[in-house]
């Protein structure tokens, strides 16, 4: 069963999940996972392919709703509000819980419009000047401002892969979310671009609660303070990253960390 290290229960948890199950049609992808996500740390989900870590991540902003056959049960709370409850609109939820995808997916619009997209639909800026401020601030936080400030009207798709991914992070930041979900954000990038993304995650942690799914254990070790290991749809072990990587309790975690499978 799930091993949770001491002191992982969090009174101030940003996201609290209890007994979450996800089904794709008849197939169960996530089996009774409970977790508290701290607002102050970067939390990494690791595990072999198909273990359900991405599926679980997508529960937090209800992206599984876009898959017709997917069904989610259990309780997920954002700051104590049930995200499936009547008082939570999915549009509001996604404004509060941003997401960065595996493959950079800028819109085929200008760099400026890519960032302005979220603030515009959520009505965050009244005037063009406000929007300019948001765009500059988001790009600056994403570490992209200096590279693109002279060509904000160029297409977002014309940037390099790493720049596109930072553009997507800036886009997520622009609506000022509380949580940023990252689904293997560096797996389509080269090592230098990856390093930049990891640096960026480090800078953003503290300001936003960050949950990152990653294939790379080194990446989890580098960027996260909390790690959850998933296997076959179950959360096997959850604890401080340093503990998980140096002193795992579960045999399966140890096997995975030491590269015996996965």
């Amino acid at each position, binding site marked *: 069963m799930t091993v949770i290290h001491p002191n992982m229960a969090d009174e101030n948890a940003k996201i609290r999940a209890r007994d979450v199950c996800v089904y794709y049609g008849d197939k169960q992808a996530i089996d009774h996972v409970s977790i508290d996500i701290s607002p102050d740390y970067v939390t990494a989900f690791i595990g072999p392919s198909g273990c359900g870590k991405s599926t679980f991540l997508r529960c937090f902003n209800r992206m599984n709703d876009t898959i017709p056959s997917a069904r989610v049960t259990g309780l997920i709370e954002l700051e104590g509000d049930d995200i499936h409850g009547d008082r939570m609109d999915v*549009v509001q939820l996604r404004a509060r819980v941003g997401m960065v995808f595996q493959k950079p997916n800028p819109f085929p619009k200008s760099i400026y419009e890519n960032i302005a997209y979220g603030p515009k639909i959520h009505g965050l800026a009244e005037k063009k000047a406000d929007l300019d401020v948001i765009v500059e601030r988001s790009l600056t936080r994403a570490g992209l401002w200096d590279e693109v400030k002279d060509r904000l009207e160029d297409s977002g798709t014309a940037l390099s892969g790493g720049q596109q991914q930072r553009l997507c992070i800036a886009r997520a930041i622009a609506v000022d979310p509380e949580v940023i979900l990252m689904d293997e954000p560096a797996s389509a990038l080269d090592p230098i671009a990856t390093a930049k993304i990891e640096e960026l995650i480090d800078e953003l942690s503290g300001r936003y609660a960050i949950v990152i799914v990653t294939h790379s254990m080194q990446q989890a070790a580098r960027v996260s303070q909390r790690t959850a290991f998933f296997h076959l749809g179950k959360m096997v072990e959850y604890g401080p990253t340093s503990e998980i990587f140096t002193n795992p309790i579960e045999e399966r975690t140890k096997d995975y960390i030491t590269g015996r499978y996965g």
Partner: protein
Amino acid sequence: MSPITLILIAIGLGLAGWLAGRAKAWSFQSSDPAHRPVSRPIYHAWYVALWVALPVLAFVAIWSAIAPQLVTQSVLASPAAAELPAFGFERDAFLGEARAVAQGSAPGVFNSDAEPLVAPFREAMTRYNIIGVIVTVLIAVAGGGFAFLRLRPDFRARTRVERTVMAILLLASLVAILTTFGIFASLVFETVRFFGMVSPIEFLFGTKWGPDTMVSPDAVDPSRYGAVPLFWGTIFIGAIIAMIVAIPLGLMSAIYLTQYADPRVRTWVKPLLEILAGVPTVVYGYFAALTVAPAIRDAAVAIGISGASTESALAAGVVMGVMIIPFVSSMADDSMAAVPSAMRDGSLAMGATKSETIRRVLFPAALPGIVAGIMLAVSRAIGETMIVVMAASPAANLTLNPLEPMSTVTVQIVKLLTGEQSTDHPATLSAFALGFVLFMVTLALNFIALRVVKRFREAYE
């Protein structure tokens, strides 16, 4: 002897060559890897068969064209032909009759003068039939023998067979292209003749259309050949009224089908919509002429507009628009489906609603494909004939009022070419000039549309 018989002979000999080639190739089989044949026996077999069949087919094609001439010449050389009238209609009629009787397709001669020619015809035909068969067999044997002797274990039969098959496929695809060039050439030829009688300036910029078919070709009044009212009618009906109907309805149905429809609904509605594209346009024509046009006239009269016509441009345009809906919707459907789902997810994850995602991300991303679809639809609409022939007016009319009758280029082409004028009359020739203009415009639209689609595809691959 008909070409069919020759072809059957060729097939029979080809089969024999095929079997012989395969038998010889089988004898090459060896257990020693160093002496294993380069190609499999089946390719040796096909190599021989192709060498038999292709030369024979070429010969049959030529022979069936020249054999009748040879027969006629040999009949004319016979003593019986000395009685024939030297030239003209009668001479051809006699020859034709005698030939028909000799072939057995007519029971007897009508003109007794043709009677003496029947026997020479029969004789000549038999002679040339025998020659045809002999040459066919000779060619087949020569081709087959040549191929058969070339077969060796190290002979690369496969590459040769495949190259030949490729050439045949290429030839097949060239047929359509060459036909297009042929059409183009014939149009150009007749158009040039027409422009010899009416100046292109008059034709392209004149505003009065009313070819007088009764007047003699020498006394043509060029000012009656101004095609602007027709161009305007075509554009007004096909590119304006039809598109006002087709674009919104087509796009909305595409958006519904790709984004909102339940998969079960989609599996029913999409094919149904595509069936609309297969309805013969003449059926739309009935609908336009008998149902829509009177309804529009009555409605116009009811709200107090006088002078509304039952041949109004509106009726033809609206029905044409309905006909075009499937084209617009299916192209829009394809290009919206081609937008990567990562775009959609990215937008939804930003907290955009479904309709915001469609309006601000999917639609702009799919726009080039949609525009191309609309251009193809326009090119189809302006080339459409049956609906406008049945519902639009034969009288050209330069007006902005959609309730008045209007004519289109295609209507005039049909009208001018189904008349009884000689092909030398400028009225008839003007149909070719109209066709030429239409051809060029639709060609340009298709060309641009395909370029746009291609660039759009590259953007996502």
